[in-house]
């Protein structure tokens, strides 16, 4: 077995083992931590399709994370207050069913990614980074100034949304949902990378002109990848909102975009399990260093600096000891 495959398997087992141990030891807090890791990793898996596979350094993925979150917040708040979202021209009611919320989140973030991508993909490099950032910030300020859904204070949802056949309030069951979704996203991500679409996307990252000579339009490829990427991050946003039973404009802020990117860089860009390793390390550091000092981000910054300077393959790259084929 390849070393990287082994590391990936260990990571997956580790992420499963922590909450199982916590269940036995009756430490539900750690189950919630593992759930956060799974959700952040899912957001990272989405962004990794754009950055790792497509070479599209999006600094605005908080837009999709936030839209996913607000899809949950808006639907659930209407369900909780028994008020319809819309009565005319047709009746739309709120919902507290997770599958309905997930589908809404995926569609909303997919549409947003289509619009944001269609405009920003006409540029490249630093302009692309800035335009995606600008779209994220636009949504951030929009939610702040939208009193109907809490404005700056956000929205609290009192009951966790339901999933048929499961008690989602039970931490381990909610963890199981996020873990399965993360697993599916990782499988999808692998299949995508190996499909003709993924290979062409990877080739376009190397040279746009060359892929055109084989009859492929880089713009369309990248837009499709950007939409898929946004949808996955949007789904993560919906799960994150459900975990906290709270949404606020912070989900849209550029810090959130930065954090999702940090997961990928720490774990290893373009590595399948990079976001999982990165999110796990991030949460671990937050717990350990956060206990020592409120300013734990300084240490995170130092670590990030070291990774970028000395271990560009991130955790996975360093442990697997081989260059990423898709670097």
């Amino acid at each position: 077995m390849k070393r990287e495959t082994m590391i990936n398997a260990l990571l997956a087992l580790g992420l499963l083992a922590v909450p199982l141990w916590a269940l036995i030891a009756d430490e539900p807090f750690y189950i919630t931590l593992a759930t956060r890791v799974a959700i952040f990793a899912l957001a990272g898996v989405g962004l990794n399709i754009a950055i790792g596979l497509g070479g599209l350094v999006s600094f605005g993925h908080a837009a999709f994370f936030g839209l996913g979150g607000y899809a949950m917040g808006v639907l659930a708040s209407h369900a909780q207050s028994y008020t319809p979202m819309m009565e005319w021209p047709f009746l739309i009611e709120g919902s507290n069913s997770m599958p309905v919320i997930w589908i809404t989140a995926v569609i909303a973030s997919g549409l947003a990614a289509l619009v944001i991508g269609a405009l920003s993909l006409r540029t490249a490099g630093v302009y692309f980074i800035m335009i995606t950032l600008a779209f994220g910030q636009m949504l951030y300020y929009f939610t702040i100034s939208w009193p109907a859904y809490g404005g700056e204070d956000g929205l609290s949802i009192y009951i966790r949304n339901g999933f048929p056949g499961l008690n989602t309030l039970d931490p381990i069951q909610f963890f199981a949902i996020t873990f399965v979704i993360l697993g599916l996203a990782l499988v999808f991500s692998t299949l995508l990378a190996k499909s003709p679409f993924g290979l062409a996307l990877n080739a376009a990252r190397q040279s746009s002109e060359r892929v055109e000579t084989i009859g492929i339009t880089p713009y369309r490829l990248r837009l499709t990848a950007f939409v898929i990427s946004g949808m996955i991050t949007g789904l993560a946003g919906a799960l994150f909102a459900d975990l906290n039973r709270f949404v606020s404009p912070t989900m849209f802020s550029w810090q959130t975009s930065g954090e999702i990117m940090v997961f990928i860089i720490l774990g290893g860009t373009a590595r399948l399990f990079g976001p999982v390793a990165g999110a796990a390390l991030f949460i671990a550091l937050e717990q350990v260093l956060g206990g020592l000092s409120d300013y734990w981000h300084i240490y995170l910054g130092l670590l990030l600096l070291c990774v970028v300077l000395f271990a560009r393959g991130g955790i996975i790259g360093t442990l697997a000891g081989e260059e990423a084929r898709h670097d």
Partner: protein
Amino acid sequence: MSLLSLTNVSAFYGASQALFKVNLHIDQGAVVALMGRNGMGKSTTIKVLCRMLPLAGGDIQFDGHDLRRVPSYKAARLGLGLVPEGRRCFANLTVEENLIAASRQGHWDLNQVAELFPRLRERHNQSAASLSGGEQQMLAIGRALMTNPRLLILDEATEGLAPIVRQEIWAAIAKLKRETGLSILVVDKSLRELATVADEAVVLQRGETVWHGPINALTSDITNRYIGV
């Protein structure tokens, strides 16, 4: 039946004119050699044909389509299969991935390409960057074939390769012609090998077609004057 015709094609690099009056005609199933000294416009003609350089004047008709306003990816989809100068494989993909990325429905698939170039089958899991020059050339040809082109365009396909590898490439081109009847436009410097595979030749001089006809009708007078061999 006519597959491709370039009529009085002209083109510019910025302000300087590179092509003045290129005329080139390829019949279905024909192998045509595009010849001329360095800097006479062979590669520029190919760039214009593949829509990588804007056309300033003249006409390009390919398989019943007007190529004048077509972007390069569409030209490729209509059936222009380019093997670019300098090979230009996707270095970050493996051999097989290079081929899959380009694949489109048709006769050519991974097996067909491996049959033409058995060495690619041996190296299918290797990164394209780790291949020798000759193997990269085979991969570049294979990649163009995977798009199932109507016309294969080989730009300096044997340049910088060892003689034995060049022979392999020429043998593959001859096999393509013999067994598939694919139309081919080939740019190369070695007249001797060209004469073995090409039916016709078009000679360029300073961005203009100065001679065209059956390749075996090329006299030493013409080759001395325009090609320098």
